[in-house]
């Protein structure tokens, strides 16, 4: 055990005592087990107390809860699936240690099989399966932390971030995604826990990508993650979140909020690959602000889950800012990937590119939902949007809902979308070269995904290719 973890544990137990003293519960741990389902102001107060947060954060949480309770479910979305969510039957906070409540036997067979096929090491399997709260990669993590600290980079989980750098957090928290932005952002703001907090000082180029993978605690995979990344002037950082292996969790609702702030001349790339197990509603709000001459890139891969709603957004607020969103969705059996991208051009001479690729298989449904908004003063902007969809299987469904709102004429906007199945002549060509039809189809799908995979670090790309291979075989589930 590292000092950090020990310290955190003792912090938590200290918090428990404080909580017991304050509220007179005899056994708060028991309380969690028996049914702190549902949400109200007491739960929010309790979460904030347990974390020993400053009052201003507690107030933000309470205010957000009111917004969550008053906002209706978005009507433009797949309400059929969204209405399945029973908000009263959800645990909104669990201490990390309680994630260990389940045993390996509880983890569904298809998840275990996938771990097998992907060759995930034993220790990681338990972590990803939600059995173990920790994944022992401490040594790597620790040496990296030391190195970063020397350079002045702050890379912490969000709770520690709030404790150690309340000044920065207070200045930026909720400035990109205010709690009244949407129902799920409000929920996250009320009950957030975990997530990453990164601050890169001016002019610094962080050489190695920062990976959430190495941030070792269960909140890593938390239900209501809150991530805040600030790249100060002229700095450069690449953050990687998630992994290709399926993450199993019994919590059915996951609602993260990710805020990126790229100050003048900085560059942030945020890579996510998520592969939630199929019981999960994954409702995420991701947004970034790019200041003068800054660049933000979202590389976003969505696999798994029952319903994913995720539309990474870039607000180009400074002249010369640039944004790029590359998004991939794979919708298999009974899944709806409602993903997309948003770009708001609020300054002149800004440019953006959106590339979206989706695959719908069996009765899976992949939707692209996007927005390009160009404000009146944002002259000389360039936007290009490209959506490709591949349909595999008779009942596959693909939707494209791009929205373009253009309030001035000195711009160039292009949008293109294509939907098709695997082309017969491509299949014919490959099978005539001796490949089986399955191999040929896989090759075509891999080719279709390549613009995405080539943007990933090698180990992720390899894993993703294997995962798609499994999905294509239909051997999962």
């Amino acid at each position: 055990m590292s000092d950090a973890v020990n310290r955190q544990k003792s912090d938590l137990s200290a918090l428990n005592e404080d909580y017991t003293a304050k509220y007179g519960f005899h056994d708060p741990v028991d309380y969690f087990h028996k049914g702190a389902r549902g949400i109200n102001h007491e739960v929010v107060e309790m979460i904030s107390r347990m974390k020993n947060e400053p009052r201003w954060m507690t107030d933000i949480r309470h205010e957000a809860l009111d917004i969550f309770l008053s906002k209706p479910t978005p009507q433009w979305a797949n309400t059929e699936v969204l209405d399945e969510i029973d908000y009263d039957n959800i645990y909104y906070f669990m201490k990390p240690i309680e994630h260990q409540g389940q045993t390996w036997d509880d983890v569904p067979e298809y998840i275990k099989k996938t771990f097998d096929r992907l060759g995930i090491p034993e220790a990681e399997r338990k972590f990803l399966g939600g059995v173990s709260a920790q994944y022992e990669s401490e040594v790597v993590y620790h040496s990296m932390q030391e190195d970063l600290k020397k350079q002045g980079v702050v890379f912490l989980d969000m709770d520690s971030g709030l404790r150690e750098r309340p000044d920065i957090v207070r200045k930026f928290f909720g400035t990109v995604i205010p709690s009244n932005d949407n129902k799920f952002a409000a929920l996250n703001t009320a009950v957030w826990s975990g997530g990453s907090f990164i601050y890169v000082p001016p002019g610094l180029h962080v050489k190695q990508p920062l990976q959430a993978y190495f941030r070792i605690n269960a909140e890593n995979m938390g239900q209501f993650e809150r991530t805040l990344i600030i790249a100060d002037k002229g700095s450069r950082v690449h953050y990687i979140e998630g992994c290709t292996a399926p993450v199993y969790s019994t919590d059915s609702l996951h609602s993260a909020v990710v805020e990126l702030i790229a100050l003048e001349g900085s560059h942030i790339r945020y890579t996510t690959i998520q592969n939630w197990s199929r019981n999960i509603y994954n409702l995420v709000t991701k947004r970034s602000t790019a200041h003068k001459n800054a660049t933000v890139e979202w590389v976003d891969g969505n696999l798994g889950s029952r319903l994913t709603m995720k539309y990474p957004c870039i607000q180009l607020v400074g002249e010369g800012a640039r944004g790029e969103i590359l998004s991939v969705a794979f919708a298999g059996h009974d899944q709806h990937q409602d993903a997309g991208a948003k770009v708001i051009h609020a300054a002149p001479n800004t440019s953006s590119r959106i590339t979206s690729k989706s695959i719908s298989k069996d009765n899976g449904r992949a939707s692209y939902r996007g927005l390009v908004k160009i404000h009146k003063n944002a002259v000389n902007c360039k936007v290009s949007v490209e959506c490709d969809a591949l349909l595999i299987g008779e009942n596959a469904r693909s939707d494209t809902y791009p929205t373009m709102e253009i309030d001035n004429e000195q711009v160039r906007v292009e949008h293109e979308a294509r939907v098709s199945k695997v082309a017969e002549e491509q299949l014919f060509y490959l099978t005539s070269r001796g490949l089986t039809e399955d191999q040929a189809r896989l090759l075509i799908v891999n080719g279709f995904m390549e613009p995405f995979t080539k943007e990933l670090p090698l180990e992720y790309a390899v894993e993703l290719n294997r995962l798609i291979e499994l999905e294509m075989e239909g051997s999962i589930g």
Partner: protein
Amino acid sequence: MADTVTEYTIPELTPELQRGPVWLRDRRRAAREAFNALPLPRRGLHLWRYTDPSRFVIPPGADAGELNGDFAKVADLERRHLADGRLAGVVTDRGGREISRVGLDEAAGLGVVATALSDAVDSHFELVERYLYQLVNSETGKFEAMNGALWNDGIFVYVPDGVTLEKPVHLLRAAGGAGTAQYPRLLVVVGRNAGLTLIDEYGGGSYDVAAGQAYVNAAVEIFGDDDSRVRYVALQRQAPATASYLTHRARIGRGASMLTIPLVFGGLLSKQNFGVVLNGRGAESKMYGLLFGSGYQHLDNHTLHHHAASQTRSNIDFKVVLRDRALSAYTGLIRIDRHAKTCEAYQENRNLLLNKGTRAETIPELEILNEDVMCTHGATLGPIDPLQLFYLRSRGVPENDAVRMVVSGFVTSTLKEVPDDLRERISDFVSSRLEGL
């Protein structure tokens, strides 16, 4: 200007509206009840994202009023076209007051019917009872229910099986002045292996914003049987203080082809919805839209291609030109059903913005429910290409003329599809809109 009304229920239908057969009276009553029960469309739904539905709620007490069609010039032109044989006939729809017909003798000889809908309810009761309200009804929406309850007259066009009317039939639809409301309706039934070209022109309305708006709520239903060929042109050139709502739905059968040409020029506020359901194997639908907005016009258009059968093909090309402070909101949906295999669908929306202050929203949408399709869509938006202007100016063309040339180049491919007798007028509309730029 009349105040916007958000709460309005249709009172008991007037005796005049309750005339006719029992089935019609029942359907009108049902539509009235549906309108009164339905809430206003929610702004959260994307089709209403850019247009406030309460602006189509007609102030209580508005009735047909004095109709003005501004048709004198058009009528002259049409008489000439009839004389030189370019037109099969003209039907002028002045609401409940009168439906007048000119020409059409040759058409009548072939068995083609173009008459008042209220007359057709008796004379062609089987067809009217079977088709009326099938495609545009209270399930389509609240304002469609409004027309279903209140249409005071309309036009019925019927082409029997095997008959092709080569020359177009021109329909002229009047609107009232400030503070009036009109509910025109059109029902078209084209038989098996039959052919028809219709020009459906909406004019008139209120000319003076200060005096108040005129309201028009129109419904169009077109049925093309197997192997039919229908061309339908909807020309919107209402007066500048008119608010108009139009829902068009067509359904075509096996091997049928349909060409729809929405031409949008008029009105202060207009929301139009053009949809074709490809309902039989091998059916093909094309839409060529052209919108030119100027002044403070707010023009909201929706197109739908619904592939409900296999081996169907569709193509949409919707062009938008905007100047001054005009706004265009275009949403186009391609829907391909689960059982509709090997379909092809294309959609393109191009927007040309001539000056600062214009606004264009474009949402080309796809809903594809099976894998065996070929489907693409594209949208572009921008000012006139400075390189094109530079080229023309370097050849000695003055800037204004150069802009005209580029715009007319932009609209040419659409004008090519417009029937001969109308093309010149549309091209004049475009030129007159470019004046003073």
